[in-house]
């Protein structure tokens, strides 16, 4: 028996059991999803609703308020049945006891074993499992094939080292006043941890400390990447507006055909197809300093069951269901979203779009940081991470920036 049919049988059994249990009347489950994950989540929820009597109602929470909403909801004992949120919050939520223990159900689900290791790790605390990957995204490098061609570069070959990024960017900048070689959102902490840190990790660095005794920003990778960014900035290969970009123009300039190379996420595949269908772009892994070094930031949303959920069994059933082949392929892959089970990357939808296959493979080489207070350390507007980036690249003090960031991160981790 193949995994697929076994999984299918399991799903059917679960479905049947829940159907028996709630045969009397259909329930409605509430689910919170963050704003930027709404489109992705809607695909899965619609698929579930089409084939199950119990319906799920989605509520969209603006990204920045998700933590506050969940925290106040738990305290007021008014939580949704399911919640999907940025996976970097898992450690904090698990530690705070906000989430229901799903260990028994997920360990018994054969599909869970094939979920990408990064997603399994981020959802595990003290040996117990509290969630599963839901709508994955992963960071990759994109390049503009038309600009490459114009600059005399091979449009089918993306850069494979940090040095190549720099060299290629120089050639593209030479094309004209309006064309830039490289881009990054200089005031967006999240964009840069997503696209910049994998360059550092690929070059051998470890990023964030898990506790007060752990090391932060180890290895030479951090310095190498910051120096490369600084060099590109100093040489004018990056538009001046990048410095003030909070993320609102994360991919806008690339979409206008003005940028040669930049880090981005798998989400661009669907996004570009919709908004700029004629753009020729390539996707590859984010590289390190030497050939063959690659990494990625494994991101996206996880799904969990908050403590206080009024439909715990149904919620668990949903999570088990979303890991099935059918849900992953028809719900996610069909809509250009990565399945959280890399083994399913080889599906009919992805075969039609090879960029998706590359992106799915990136899940395998990627990392995800398992730390508390990720928000404070990285995403916050006053975080050591963004201060380090800005001080190194725009102020020019690479060493000082790294040193300061290391100290502040360790201080936060020690809290």
């Amino acid at each position, binding site marked *: 028996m193949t995994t697929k049919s076994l999984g299918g049988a399991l799903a059917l059994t679960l479905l049947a059991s829940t159907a028996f249990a709630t045969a009397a009347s259909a329930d409605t489950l509430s689910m919170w999803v963050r704003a930027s994950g709404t489109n992705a989540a809607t695909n899965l929820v619609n698929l579930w609703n089409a084939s199950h009597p119990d319906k799920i109602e989605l509520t969209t929470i603006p990204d920045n308020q998700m933590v506050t909403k969940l925290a106040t909801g738990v305290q007021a004992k008014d939580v949704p049945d399911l919640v999907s949120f940025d996976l970097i919050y898992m450690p904090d939520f698990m530690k705070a006891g906000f989430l229901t223990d799903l260990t028994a159900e997920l360990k018994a689900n054969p599909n869970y074993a094939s979920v990408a290791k990064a997603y399994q790790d981020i959802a595990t605390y003290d040996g117990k499992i509290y969630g599963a990957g839901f709508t994955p995204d992963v960071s990759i490098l994109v390049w503009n094939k038309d600009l490459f061609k114009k600059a005399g570069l091979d449009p089918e070959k993306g850069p494979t080292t940090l040095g190549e990024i720099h060299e290629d960017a120089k050639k593209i900048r030479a094309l004209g006043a309006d064309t830039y070689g490289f881009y990054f959102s200089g005031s967006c902490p*999240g964009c840069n941890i997503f696209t910049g840190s994998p360059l550092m990790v690929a070059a051998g660095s470890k990023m964030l400390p898990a506790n007060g005794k752990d090391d932060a920003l180890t290895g030479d990778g951090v310095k190498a990447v910051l120096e490369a960014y600084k060099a590109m900035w100093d040489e004018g290969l990056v538009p001046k507006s990048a410095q003030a970009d909070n993320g609102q123009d*994360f991919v806008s300039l690339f979409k206008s055909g003005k940028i040669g190379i930049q880090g981005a996420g798998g989400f661009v595949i669907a996004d570009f197809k919709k908004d700029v269908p004629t753009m020729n772009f390539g996707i590859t892994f984010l590289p390190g300093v030497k050939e063959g070094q690659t990494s990625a930031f494994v991101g996206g949303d996880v799904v969990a069951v908050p403590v206080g959920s009024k439909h715990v069994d149904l919620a668990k059933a949903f999570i088990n269901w979303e890991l099935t082949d059918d849900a992953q392929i028809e719900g996610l892959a069909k809509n250009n979203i990565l399945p959280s089970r890399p083994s399913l990357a080889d599906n009919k939808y992805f075969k039609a779009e090879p960029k998706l296959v590359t992106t799915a493979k990136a899940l395998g080489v990627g990392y995800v940081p398992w730390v508390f207070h990720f928000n404070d350390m990285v995403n916050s507007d006053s975080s050591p991470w963004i201060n380090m980036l800005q001080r190194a690249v725009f102020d020019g003090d690479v060493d000082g920036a790294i040193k300061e960031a290391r100290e502040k991160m360790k201080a936060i981790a020690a809290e």
Partner: protein
Amino acid sequence: MSVATIPAQDSAAVARPARRLSPTAYLVGAICVAVAALMAAPLALSLLASIKTTADASAVPPHYLPQALSAESYWKVVNFQAGLATYVGNSALVAGITIVACLLLAAPAGYGLARFAFRGKEIAFLLLLAPIMIPYQALLTPLYLDFAKLGLANSHFGLALVHTVLQLPFSIYLMRSAFEAVPREIEEAAAMDGCSSWQSLLRVFLPLAFPGLVTVGLFAFINSWNEFLGALIFMNHETDFTVPIMIVSVRTGNHGAVDWGALQASVVISILPCLAVYLLLQRYYISGLLAGAVK
């Protein structure tokens, strides 16, 4: 009867010395046009951008005019999640309750402050101003937990109470000023006719201060309509959400990317009701803001 409203033409004495159009008048007119153009420009550009395609709205370099007309941004906003009609309905409900609550509380309070002398009056007035002096973001969390215990969380009524308390200081100030503008003779005449203070309020003061009431309603509407954080914290279901929450969600992309077209469309959409209310009530509230500045 309408002592509280002074014919507008008389204030021409301030604006210009003579009736015929002097060069000064032309200059003043030109300045008006310039001011209006400057103030309207961002909104006009926003409107133009809202009818561009999504890609064009974030194009680099930007274009003043749309390359091609497209309703896709409006489509996105109108069809987002629960649908625009739901959000508008919720916002209207909350705003409506806020207006009523503001009037019910601010009118008597303004009356008491305007026409009665009692020790501690100014301190009471300061206390009534307190809500605007506290960073209300900090108050929202304890307030939400309190309301949850009282069963007021997740209710539009509860949210309206929060909006009311935020509007109350300004509303009371408006009503106080409006009532202070009523001449003593009229109040004394009513008293001599045997009216109690309550009857005076209902039969004499409220009608005379009607423009003030309208003004309170207008500002209560505008501020309740646009309030975001309280609405998000107090509501837990998409179908209960108000327009500001939808506006934030519809324009948010991955990693903070902003859908500029959706932003512009949502700005245009959210302005329209407030603009309509403002235009309808305009003739009332200008004379309503008789802030009693001059007596």
